[in-house]
């Protein structure tokens, strides 16, 4: 092999962008005289489904650990809730004065902060009851580009616009069929990581999942402007808002019954799209349409009020961000009690730190953790019962509803993503399943890549 061609094929950039390093076979199938579908079969060590908050970290971890890794994402960019959803404040990485979530997630966040000349909050000063003080604000679009670059540098083969249609397990390998624009793909992998947030891959693979009768509302992030808040007659606005609600032209749940909050936040994390569900294209379409319709309706109303005549929409995210859908039925279910007492398990692989944060039709009242409490994530809660070579990361973690309302936050999902991928890497190396990897090796691998693993006292 010539050195230059070797460089082209082994170099990080070509490996990440091209499918050639993964390609087993490829053919084209004519649909009619004018259109052909490309059919590919790819083989990889690890397949990550879902390029959101957890999936990106998982893919980078797997790639940096030297595994051939493919990342499938149904959208057009990575980052999910942080980027496409616009919730660009990825939770809390520091608790009680020390860093509890580090590794790849923090690396990406920190680089986005530095490149945007943003300032970090002082984590040494306690946030008290106001936990957003320790939130790090990101430039979402910059973050999306940075994480894509990191994936490519880690040799991760990214496949945008693809979604799984069938998942089967045979001869210690998963075969995942996906459909995308103008192509169908069959991806054969040894280890599968479900980072869809909805436990989609898990359920497609045939494992049971759980869902509450009522789930938390989603949020459509937007920005409005064109008015001076200090010149507004807030009593009048509230009065008129309640009149519209009584008439039925506005819905009080859409903005937490807080029209002043809409104006004050200028659209930042104030919308509530009741019943928002991202599990099917139909349900997510509905969530998007509902979110946009309520925003349009509300803006039309506001523009009729004094000093708001020139109110305008400056930006709206592409989709409604979703808080809660399905959770896996894992080997262990993290309970609220575990969470609020900061229980450390023998197989804890990462920390999580956030108040119990259940949004409902009345809004949200966060329940803060007692001083010194830092909850943890056991490996068993990431593994669906009776599965092999399958692990999840992100908000679909096996947990009760209240624990999940805190575990779902992005920083925690990043920690889970790194841990899940490390377990998958070792499972591939040892020819086993994530739950059976030697824990000391798992801890060592996570830590060697900068992650923080909780330890029993």
């Amino acid at each position, binding site marked *: *092999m010539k*050195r*230059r*061609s*070797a*460089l*082209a*094929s*082994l*170099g*990080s950039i*070509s*490996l990440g962008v091209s499918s*050639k*390093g993964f*390609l087993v076979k490829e053919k084209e199938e004519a649909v009619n005289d004018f259109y052909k579908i490309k059919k590919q079969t790819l083989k990889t060590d690890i397949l990550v489904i879902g390029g959101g908050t957890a999936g990106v970290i998982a893919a980078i971890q797997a*790639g*940096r*650990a*030297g*595994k*051939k890794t493919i990342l499938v994402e149904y959208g057009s960019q990575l980052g999910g809730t942080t980027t496409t959803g616009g919730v660009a404040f990825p939770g809390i990485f*520091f608790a009680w*004065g020390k*860093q509890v979530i*580090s*590794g790849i997630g*923090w*690396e990406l966040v*920190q680089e986005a902060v*530095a490149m945007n000349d943003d300032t*970090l909050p*002082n*984590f*040494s*000063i306690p946030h008290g009851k*106001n936990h957003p*003080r320790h939130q790090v604000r990101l430039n979402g679009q910059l973050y999306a580009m940075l994480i894509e670059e990191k994936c490519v*540098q*880690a*040799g991760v083969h990214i496949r945008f616009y693809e979604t799984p249609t069938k998942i089967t397990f045979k001869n210690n390998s998963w075969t995942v069929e996906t459909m995308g624009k103008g192509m169908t793909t069959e991806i054969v992998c040894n280890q599968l990581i479900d980072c869809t947030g909805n436990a989609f891959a898990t359920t497609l693979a045939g494992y049971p999942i759980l869902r509450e009768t009522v789930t938390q509302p989603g949020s459509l992030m937007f920005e409005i402007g064109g008015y001076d*808040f*200090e010149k*507004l*007659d*807030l*009593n*009048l606005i509230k009065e008129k808002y309640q009149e519209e609600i009584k008439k039925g032209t506005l819905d009080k749940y859409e903005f937490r019954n807080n029209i*002043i909050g809409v104006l*004050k936040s200028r659209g930042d994390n104030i919308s509530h799209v009741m019943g928002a569900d991202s599990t099917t294209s139909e349900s997510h379409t509905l969530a998007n349409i509902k979110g946009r319709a309520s925003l349009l309706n509300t803006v039309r109303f506001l523009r009729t009020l004094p000093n708001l005549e020139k109110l305008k929409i400056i930006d709206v995210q592409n989709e409604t961000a979703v808080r809660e859908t399905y959770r896996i039925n894992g080997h262990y279910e993290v309970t609220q009690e575990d969470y609020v007492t900061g229980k450390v398990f023998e197989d804890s692989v990462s920390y999580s730190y956030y108040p119990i944060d259940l949004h409902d039709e009345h809004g949200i009242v966060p329940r803060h953790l007692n001083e010194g409490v830092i909850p943890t994530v056991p490996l068993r809660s990431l593994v669906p019962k009776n599965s092999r070579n399958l692990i999840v990361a992100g908000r679909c973690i096996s947990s009760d509803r209240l624990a999940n309302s805190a575990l779902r936050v992005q920083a925690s999902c990043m920690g889970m993503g790194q841990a899940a991928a490390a377990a998958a890497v070792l499972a591939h190396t040892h020819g086993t399943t994530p739950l059976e990897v030697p824990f000391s090796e798992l801890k060592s691998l996570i830590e*060697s*890549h*900068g*992650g923080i693993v909780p330890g029993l006292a």
Partner: protein
Amino acid sequence: MGLLVLSGYYSSDSIRYAHAPTLSLPVDSTLYFIVDFKDDISNDTLVQTRSQEGYPISYSRSIRTGVCFDNKCRPLDITLRWNLTGRYLGFELPEKEFLSKYDHDPFSEAEYQRLHAILTDSLSPLANFHYNEIVPKADSTYEKVDAVSGATSASVLEHVVEGAAFTTYKLWHLVYGPARQQVEALTSRALTPELIQLVLNSTHPSDKIWALNHIDGYVKPTPALQKVVVSFISDQDYNLTERALNSINSNDLQSGALQSILVQKIFETKYSTQKLLLTKLKAVPKLHKEAYSLLNQNLTKLNGQLIAEILQLFIQYQISDVETYRSVSALLASPNAFVSGKAYAFLTRADPQDVVVKERLTVYEEKHKGKAIE
């Protein structure tokens, strides 16, 4: 800004709440600065106390304004104090003066303490409240109207002294408004490496951050100051580490000794700190041999991503000696394909002629024959 120097005077027989200033030095002189505070309060003087060494110790501003309720007005007569770093220190009332609420009741001891605590909190949500939320009814006189408790929303009441919402709000914004910026600007004019060192000794985290933010572009660091700054780079406190590294500019980084200290710290710290250190090394004007030799000798101790970044550093600084090529070529045998791939890409780009390196490359290529599809 005008200036008048007078000797210091301090009344002690009054209601007074105060935190200790960072510098516990005796007041030697008092300076008066005429400042545009960009508000409607008539007093435009910012008072600075100084030590014998000429270090600013604290600042104060006397406020006289009106707060009205039930169609009756009371003057608000209070002196606010700041640390040399702009941190709120406390307040003092003139003799026999007291603060009162909307019902004319004087503040209780607990209410004074609550006010002091609220004013101490630089991150209070009051920063994001607007006048018209404190006094919901829009009115041309609202700026001088204290909040009637019934009309003040629950979200505001959580952050104010009940019955004195507007007083609390007004004072908080006076503490953290233009006066604070003026305080910082005046201290910045008096900064020396020695003063920065004293502030870095503060037990208050925000003072340390302030000092680290006021090195680059403000003072030329002495070896003693640099030593203190470098001592903050550790896994103990991420903010201090990040700010300490930020305070080191490219001029300082010309020093081979400083570069070596930073490199040494890479091998003593954890990932978050290691990443910051490597980012700093990307800003050095030239990477000294002792620094990159140290990196070479310890490459295998690092994870793949850090190795990849160090290889980028070598490319950036055109490091092309045999020692470097040999230490990188040792990575070709790494069981981690990511690491060996990065080493291979680096060496292929450099195309070294060293026999040992070429041999290792040949072994690597033989091992990977047929795996690359191009």
